[in-house]
């Protein structure tokens, strides 16, 4: 039996990136791991998952899991956990991971460490690092070796495993009885936002804007830079509360927590609540008129200047670079 069970989240018939990040960390530990998939019509994604060096891929392929229901998914996952008896269950701290993992843990009498940015497993046991107090402090936590531990990893904070087509893990279909009529809560509608740019929490680069953008008519300038960088668009709370952009774009304490490779903050002053949402970005670039803005305290690179001059120039410069290849 594998030490680690990875909850392989899927979307549109594919493993999501955070699932591959869990695989990567498991591989770095040198421990055996299995990947469990929950859903319906899983044949293709099970085949994809079989190329990641897992001891086995466990598919709970059930029409009742076609749409998300925490009750049904938690029941299915807890059944697999009870059969496999892993020492550790890993999942990404995605919308699904945040909703599902604590419920499975509660059913399995386990404990959860949420949204970890550091994770080690050595002779002294399992230890995680988690941002707490909205990222104002980092907690190093020693996990209890006597309970089943569930760990969710902050998306983009770890490496990403690549598939190896020469490997093929056995795929085991595990039947789980789900009585649809007993489910009290289920998804009845899925609304996809049609954005021109990638999803914030998954993007490798983000271009974000603050109040200095002055009005919704100028958001396009930020979108243009984002498109050039294949980046997602983000915004500060002020921009969202002013109604200039939808709340799903908000980065920060009451918005999304992101950890991209590149975060470009355009006219964002860097309030502590905003820093809470983007402080773990790898490279932070700040563009701001005010040289004393707190964002420059966390930024790696910056320009003191007017975004209305600098951003279009930057877009142009990068577009030319990309054209040159």
């Amino acid at each position: 039996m594998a030490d680690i069970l990875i909850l392989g989240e899927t979307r549109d018939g594919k493993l999501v990136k955070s699932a591959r990040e869990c695989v990567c960390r498991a591989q770095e530990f040198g421990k055996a791991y299995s990947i469990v998939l929950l859903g319906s019509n899983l044949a293709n994604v099970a085949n994809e998952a079989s190329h990641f060096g897992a001891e086995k891929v466990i598919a709970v392929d059930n029409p009742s899991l076609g749409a998300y229901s925490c009750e049904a998914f938690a029941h299915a996952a807890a059944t697999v956990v009870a059969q496999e008896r892993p020492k550790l269950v890993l999942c990404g701290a995605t919308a699904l991971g945040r909703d599902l993992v604590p419920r499975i843990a509660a059913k399995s009498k386990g404990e959860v460490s949420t949204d970890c940015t550091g994770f080690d497993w050595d002779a002294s046991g399992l230890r995680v690092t988690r941002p707490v107090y909205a990222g104002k402090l980092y907690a190093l936590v020693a996990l209890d070796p006597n309970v089943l531990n569930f760990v969710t990893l902050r998306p983009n904070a770890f490496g990403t495993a690549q598939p190896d087509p020469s490997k093929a893990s056995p795929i085991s279909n595990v039947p789980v009885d789900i009585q649809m009529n007993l489910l009290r809560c289920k998804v009845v509608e899925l609304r996809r936002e049609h954005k021109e740019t990638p999803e914030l929490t998954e993007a490798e680069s983000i271009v974000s804007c603050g109040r200095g953008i002055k009005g919704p008519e100028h958001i396009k300038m930020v979108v243009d830079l984002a498109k050039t960088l294949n980046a997602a668009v983000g915004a500060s709370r002020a921009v969202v509360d002013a109604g200039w952009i939808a709340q799903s774009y908000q980065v920060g304490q009451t918005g999304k927590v992101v950890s991209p490779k590149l975060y470009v903050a355009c006219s964002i002053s860097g309030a502590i609540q905003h820093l809470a949402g983007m402080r773990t970005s790898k490279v932070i670039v700040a563009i701001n008129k005010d040289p004393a803005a707190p964002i420059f305290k966390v930024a790696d690179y910056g320009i003191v200047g007017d975004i209305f001059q600098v951003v279009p120039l930057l877009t142009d410069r990068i577009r030319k670079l990309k054209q040159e290849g």
Partner: protein
Amino acid sequence: MVEILVCLKFVPDTTAIVRPRPDGKTIETAGLKFSISPYDEFALEEALLARDALRSGKITAITVGPPRNEEGLRTALAMGADAAVFVKDPLLEQAGTVYEADILARVIKNLKFDIIMMGKQAIDDDSAQVPHYLAEHLNLPCVSMVRKVEIAPDLKSTKVTRQIEGGEEVHQSTLPLIVAVGKTEHMPRLPTLPNIMKAKTKPITVMTLQQLGASPPPPSKIMSLTPPPARKNVKLADGDTPEAKVDNLVKLLREEAKLF
């Protein structure tokens, strides 16, 4: 009449500077301003709006924590909650999530309710688990990261909208249900002076761990609390013109940061 329970946690204010004590494992609370955790405040606002929309109802705020929480509970009552339950003990300062959910379950098992609302996470430990463990204790469904709650007038079902990557899920559920809200569309109201006065006479039921038959919280597993890793000093891209600054920035990003 709808009965709504709102679970509140009181945490260092979002603007507060939080420092570890010399033990390196707990935070210095002296002089620290505590407020309702922001998502719990959104939950309370949704509860108040739901009660208004349904024309009548009762909102009970519940908190588990140290004695100073009373002040915050009065704020919740001044915002419009009708009553409060306060599980009070100085030992609850460092209660973990699994323990807190157990205490809440002990309280709630004796209460009548149609729906339980709370924030998706408290912004102190940011662990985002209490609603789910509580749901398991009470054998109820739970939906987290909720942005919108619509309770049917017959109090038999509810529709909640949950934020996910790249969109939203609409969940249909029977009641009772536990709803863990994220940021919603409604900014929490500020208490008015007359309501602050009224809140002084609203009932707060104080309970002890002993009355609930609960043992004190287990010790925390935190080994250390440290400030975030320091970032390097910023390198400003200089130049006499915006064009020159942009050229220098791109050069730094390519050659030093190895981006694009």
